[in-house]
């Protein structure tokens, strides 16, 4: 315990030096002319470089993998100290959040040393080669083939719905290495450079307009066999583990964070909580008692707000459970399902509230919020498709949690 407090003091001193107020996120209501300016960006870049050099962008990883070899307790203290000063999280992305956890679990030492340092310091951006035109919900039906030729695999096929593939340096990719095995048993997990000859990328336009989604085509792409992670034909296990990381991340992004315990004033006992009502008031008006004037839309809004509250508390309960070592695996599918469906309901309701003002596509006659609402409503339709459809999540719950038969 004393060691941990010493660590806290040391971390605090280091952070004070390397992350002074000029390098932090602003507090609510704070304004600083430098925010978003080239000078500010340079400060943030400096902060990221210095913390990466110290290994604290991935604090628990071994030093030879770009981390600092901290214990989980020390990493927790560091996270607390960084949150306290509102330090910008140094490294994010698919490499850090999806690939690194499975590399740490499944990769050999050589692979860890070659790939993890570049993830820890943000030198390489990764994309995720999973879905294919013919393999969506039935991901294990993927057909992209990798055939061994000497010490290289030759890859042919196509991946779709790959986020930011046009910006990525490398890809972690599911490929079929044994076409004769049953579909789950012929898949491997392999890494290769997106600049390899034979890789081409084209962006996808969605019903909501521009997107980061791409389709990738592989035409005789050569990938080093030493970059196959885990066992050949054993990639499905890695693929599933990575999906768990992805689904927990997606439900986190769609809201449902536990409500803050802090209160701002007596009148609003659940802070930041009726944003929908605030948004709706100018469109619906209020009656003499201050209620939103449309009773049916008001009922819908309160229903969504309450469900959001209950969902946030469920996330808190599952994190309380995790702290005490209780199994939380099933909550990943549940939260992915619930967060997606709740966000779709919310978006539908907001369109009803704003009426045709929420159906403007571009140009004059609409506020920025209204135009964003149109796109947000359309984009939300993908929430229950990407990262495993709602139907797939319900299948997982029925099988894994409820034990219903196939």
């Amino acid at each position, binding site marked *: 315990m004393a060691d941990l407090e010493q660590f806290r003091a040391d971390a605090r001193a280091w952070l004070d030096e390397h992350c002074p107020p000029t390098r932090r996120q602003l507090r609510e209501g704070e304004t600083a002319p430098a925010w978003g300016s080239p000078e500010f960006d340079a400060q943030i870049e400096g902060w990221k470089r210095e913390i990466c050099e110290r290994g604290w962008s991935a604090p628990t990883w071994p030093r030879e993998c770009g981390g600092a070899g901290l214990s989980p307790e020390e990493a927790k203290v560091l996270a607390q100290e960084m949150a306290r000063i509102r330090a910008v999280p140094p490294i994010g992305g698919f490499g850090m959040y999806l690939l690194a956890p499975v590399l740490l679990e499944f990769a050999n030492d050589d692979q860890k040393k070659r790939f993890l340092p570049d993830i820890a310091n943000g030198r390489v951006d990764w994309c995720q080669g999973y879905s294919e035109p013919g393999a969506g919900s039935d991901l294990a039906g993927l057909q992209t083939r990798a055939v061994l030729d000497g010490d290289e695999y030759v890859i042919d096929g196509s991946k779709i719905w790959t986020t930011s593939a046009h910006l990525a340096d490398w890809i972690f990719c599911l490929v079929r290495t044994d076409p004769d095995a049953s579909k789950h048993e012929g898949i491997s997990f392999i890494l290769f450079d997106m600049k390899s000859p034979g890789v081409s990328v084209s962006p996808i336009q969605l019903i909501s307009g521009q997107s980061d989604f791409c389709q990738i085509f592989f035409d005789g792409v050569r990938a080093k066999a030493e970059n196959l992670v885990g066992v050949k034909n054993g990639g499905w296990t890695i693929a599933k583990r990575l999906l768990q990381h992805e689904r927990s991340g997606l439900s986190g992004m769609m809201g449902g964070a536990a409500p803050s*315990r802090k*209160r701002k004033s*007596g*009148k*609003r*006992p*659940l802070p930041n*909580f*009726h944003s929908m*009502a605030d948004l*709706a*008031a100018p469109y619906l008006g*209020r009656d003499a008692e*201050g*209620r*939103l004037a449309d009773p049916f839309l*008001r*009922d819908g*809004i*309160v*229903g969504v*707000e*309450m*469900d959001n*509250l*209950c*969902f946030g*508390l*469920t996330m*808190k*309960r599952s994190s*309380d*459970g995790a*702290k*005490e070592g*209780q199994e939380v695996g099933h*909550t990943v599918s*549940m939260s992915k*399902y*619930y967060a997606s469906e709740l966000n779709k309901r919310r978006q539908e309701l907001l369109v009803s509230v704003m009426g045709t003002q929420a159906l403007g596509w571009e140009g004059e006659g609409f506020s920025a919020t209204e135009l964003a609402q149109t796109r947000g409503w359309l984009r939300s339709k993908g929430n229950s498709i990407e990262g495993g459809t709602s*139907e797939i*999540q*319900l*299948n997982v*719950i*029925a099988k894994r*949690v*409820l*034990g*219903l*038969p*196939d």
Partner: protein
Amino acid sequence: MSMILNDEQRMLQKTAREFVAEHAPVAHLRELRDEGDATGFSRGLWKQMAELGWAGIALPEVYGGSELGYAELGVVFEECGRTLAPTPLLSTVVLGAEVLLRAGSEPQQAELLPGVCSGDGILALAFQEAGRFAPYRVATKVTATADGHRLDGEKCFVVDGHVADRLIVVARSSGGEAERDGLSLFLVDPAAPGVEITRTIMADSRNAARVVFDGVTVGEEATLGRVGAAADTLDAVFDRATLALCAEMLGLASEAFERTVAYLKTREQFGAKIGSFQALKHRAATMFCDLELARSITLDGLRAIDEGREELPSLVSAAKARLADTAALVTCEAIQMHGGIGMTDEEEIGFFLKRARTAELFLGDATYHRDRFARLQGF
């Protein structure tokens, strides 16, 4: 406070689950119903529950309680909900005792609360006057007399009203029919002249009564709290009772769900377990999610009572709306998924539907609480 049960709470849960499974399974409620039992619950069993410490779990030590909190009382309610065990927990331990704790004088508390903790005294709060919950809609009139008060009016759905040793009556001393101000509370002896109590037989086979007050006179010492200012007391009492009821509903809905999932795994049609059909799987999985949310809001609400959190009223309404909807969904689906057997009285699943609907309407249904939540949040 963590939303995961601690060791003591888990121990309490285990004890309670085993006790009700052995002594008060659903068959116990059926037996009371079929025999037309005059009390509507087993006094002997209630005494044993009190000896286990359930009645006084959240009540002061000085009156024989153990001064734990609603996190613990909620565990007891949930487990009793699982077997639909009929007890005076809600009427006596929550509605009655909470009024006494908030509005009662020391002599009033000292007279009645030890009996609550020991399981010997039954209390009933007579507030409701129509089918739907409307806490301030009180027409029962109180008028001042030379040496006290006179009560006139009629109450319905007084839980445990026909077996109560003492009635606590909400009456209007001033103000219009639905006004928040002007409500008062009185202790009334059920045997007093002018009190007429009729037990009403409900679909859920649980206790309720119609109580008529026709020129009932009480002395000054029967007043609970300040005349005309009972609404603050009632709000706090209803909030606590609503969360306790939510815990009961969580237990009954969880049990109905588990029984249904078990049935899906055994019943065969078309040569397959019906639980292999995706049409049923997805509905079951959806209910699982709804129940998880119901559990979270109930646990948080119970802890908010113990922590004295200011946002309690909003949490209460969010909890009751969620439990009302979820218990209705789960029990209706339970009947549907059980098919024809679910419609028979012989199968127990129907008892869960009946209790769920009663609990849903008591202390405000989902519509009521969505409206209240919005008001509390300023929209």
